[in-house]
């Protein structure tokens, strides 16, 4: 069981900055994120795009913002559970919480801060009739163990990096690899596109473009897919169909935690501390909603700051505390490091 003071769900900019503000109050944080790397949308969707409304940064790339935040919170030694989705929450008798991920990792904390953005990123599923019946029976949206495709016939659909990269990878594993895409052009990195072209030329990848998988053939398990290319519709026998159409955020299991939900976001009653209808659970950043809400990173930072003060009071109801400026108090890292403003040097003139 991982124990911490504030369990943060979502390692996007707001979740990361929470670690800093909590650290100033000597509260330890642990973050859970469904993605394998921190940064949320900034890392997953637009790392190379500039942001212009971070105060004091006239321009910063989203990826650089995340790197800077990681550096800023380093002294406070946050823990990370990455690549796992927060699945269930149980309130304990003492008012604390246990959050369990989809992989069974348990986390215990008196405070839970949900900074989940638009939700956890999950594979986009194509709207093919009955596709849900074939999930884990030949339809996989994520490749967990490439070995399961050994000597199998595989059809991959999609035009991005993951479709290209997995097509390339599986040529060494599978009996046959077919890549179906609606266009002849691909969105992926140039060298991946070129590699697929080479493999196509030597007959290791069969390309079906411009075409679309419109149906699945089989009773209990995938026996083939139906492909539509222009007016032509045909069946292609295969053992596995792997649609790789990228990820989209979904609120997911958090929606069933008994929190008040409004407009696909978690309602917080007030802007005093962004607490939800369950005391001890806060919602900050894009995941919350309240009158006047703006989904901006800078607002998430503000919300995280106020939330941490409230969390401190909740953990230590009898302690008095006033906010301290970092310029005055410096930063005492949990790693023993200390940052502080240089003291004035006084020198006498003889």
């Amino acid at each position, binding site marked *: 069981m991982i124990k911490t003071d504030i369990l943060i769900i979502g390692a996007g900019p707001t979740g990361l900055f929470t670690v800093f503000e909590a650290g100033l109050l000597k509260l330890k944080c642990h973050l859970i994120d469904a993605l394998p790397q921190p940064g949320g949308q900034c890392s997953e969707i637009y790392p190379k*795009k500039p942001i212009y409304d971070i105060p004091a940064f006239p321009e910063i790339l989203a990826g650089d913002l995340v790197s800077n935040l990681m550096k800023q919170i380093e002294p406070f030694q946050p823990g990370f559970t990455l690549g796992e989705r927060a699945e269930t929450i149980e309130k304990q008798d003492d008012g604390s919480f246990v959050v369990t991920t989809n992989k069974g990792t348990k986390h215990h904390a008196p405070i839970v801060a949900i900074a989940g953005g638009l939700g956890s990123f999950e594979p986009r599923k194509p709207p093919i009739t009955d596709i849900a019946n074939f999930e884990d029976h030949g339809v996989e949206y994520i490749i967990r163990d490439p070995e399961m495709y050994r000597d199998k016939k595989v059809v991959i659909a999609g035009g*991005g990096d993951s479709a290209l990269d997995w097509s390339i990878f599986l040529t060494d594993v599978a009996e046959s690899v077919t890549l179906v*895409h609606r266009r002849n*052009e691909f*969105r992926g990195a140039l060298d991946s596109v070129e590699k697929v072209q080479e493999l196509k030329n030597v007959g290791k990848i069969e390309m079906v473009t411009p075409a679309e998988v419109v149906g699945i053939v089989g009773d209990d398990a995938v026996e083939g897919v139906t492909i539509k290319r222009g007016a032509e519709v045909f069946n292609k026998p295969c053992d596995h169909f792997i649609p790789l159409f990228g990820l*989209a955020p979904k609120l997911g299991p958090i929606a069933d935690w008994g929190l008040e939900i409004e*407009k*696909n976001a978690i309602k917080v009653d007030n802007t005093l501390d962004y607490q939800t209808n369950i005391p001890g659970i806060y919602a900050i950043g894009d995941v919350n909603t309240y009158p006047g809400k703006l989904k901006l990173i800078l607002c998430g930072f503000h919300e995280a700051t106020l939330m941490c003060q409230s969390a401190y009071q909740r953990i230590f109801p009898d302690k008095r505390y006033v906010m301290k400026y970092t310029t005055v108090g410096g930063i005492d890292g949990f790693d023993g490091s200390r940052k502080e403003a240089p003291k004035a040097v006084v020198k006498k003139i003889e």
Partner: protein
Amino acid sequence: MKDITIYITDRNGVTHTILAPTDMNMNLMEVVRSYELAEEGTIGVCGGMAMCASCQCYVESDHELPEMSHDEDLMLSEAFYVQDNSRLGCQLFISPSLEGLQVTLAPSDV
């Protein structure tokens, strides 16, 4: 600059007559959100970067539209429910030439 009138059919099939400003650098996705014609969280998911297809719409009128950028074209190549008249709302900026535009929102894929 004056507002223009556009006609937006929402995901429930209801057509709304909407006034959209031409001087606020707004795009069609933002207009839909400002009038709350689609549920928050199901439209404009990527914020308007042509990196998701949650604002996909079908252009029903024969307006001459700005040419598709590479980004929009490629995003639509991976979107679901795509038709010949599909566009991403976030890439259609409200300008006087869009007076009378008729669009239907594509089904949500979120």
